[in-house]
């Protein structure tokens, strides 16, 4: 398994190797492509397409308040049900967009959260899924 951990970005790799976080048994490593939706940041007149940056985890972005013991913060959140993402458009943070695309196993494993369509996608180091995604909704 340690060899497998080497495939992930440095911060996730270190957390796995030190057992700060542990992949659950339900993690999907080999799977068929899934259609999923990802919330991204759109900046009118400058950034209106999907880029590799849109798939960074909360930990990689090093946002204030990030809990480094929470496995969910090391993943890229996607949804199988777009309605769960659309609700965010009613909230104050602006410049939001929704991209739809394919979650593929060559980009990384995923965990499907219980009782919702929320997917935690753990991208391998250096991969760029942006070519498999396109913006379908923005504000």
């Amino acid at each position, binding site marked *: 398994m340690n060899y497998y951990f080497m495939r992930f970005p440095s911060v996730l790799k270190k957390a796995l190797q030190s057992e700060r976080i542990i992949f659950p048994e339900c993690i999907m490593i080999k799977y068929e492509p899934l259609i999923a939706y*990802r*919330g*991204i*940041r759109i900046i009118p007149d400058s950034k209106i397409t999907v880029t590799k940056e*849109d798939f960074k985890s*909360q930990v990689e972005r090093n*946002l*204030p*308040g990030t*809990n480094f*013991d*929470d496995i*969910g913060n090391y993943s*890229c*959140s996607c*949804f199988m*049900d777009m*309605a*769960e*993402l659309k*609700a*965010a458009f*009613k*909230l*104050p*943070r602006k410049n*939001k967009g929704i991209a739809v695309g394919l979650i593929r196993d060559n980009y990384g494993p995923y965990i499907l*959260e*219980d*009782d*919702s*369509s*929320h997917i935690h996608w753990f991208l391998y180091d250096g991969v760029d899924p942006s070519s498999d995604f396109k913006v379908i909704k923005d504000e």
Partner: protein
Amino acid sequence: MSKKWINLKEIGMLFIEIVLIQFDIPLLFVCNDSIGNRYLVLCVDEEYGEYIAILAGVDLLINMLTNKISMDMAFKQSKDKNVIYISYDFTNKCFVMKKGKSKEIPENYLPDAGACFEISNDKITKYIENIKIYSISINQEINIYYSKFKFEKVVQLTVDSFYGHIFDENKVIKINRIRKISQHKIVDNIVEKDELENELNFSNMNNKNTMEGCICQLAVY
């Protein structure tokens, strides 16, 4: 399982109970403090660590989650009529807060006027059912399951007063405090009656050795 969110000097550690709306990061969620208060929290700007939070009662949360009141109205109807403005102090690398009046929250800090929650899935349905247990009445018998606790045990208690909530839909794990127990039955002796009656505080057992797999929390006062 509740997850640590941030520590505020005035309130202490806040734990995320449920994420209600997630975008690329959690935007609307419910937190608990260590004494069982619930806070409805909204991300205003994640890059600068700006949030607003209100003290939220069960009725307010249920009304918002079942679309009886809009999300902006929920923030204006704080239990104590206050709002907490949370921001990140990049110099001292900590979160700080200040209080204001919930009726005076600027519009650009709130969800769209009149917009309802409108998400419906099993996660939300189960959460609503679970927080309803908060209002359990006096002398009802409750079962407290210690599954995945230090030992695999079941404890049945009849309490004289009960104040609590369950963070997840599964088994009740954590007892914060028990003030008075009129009857109890312990299946498999793991906790002595005396210990329970002495207001044993289990909250310090929240560590990897004893709380591994902990999925719920129950507070009994």
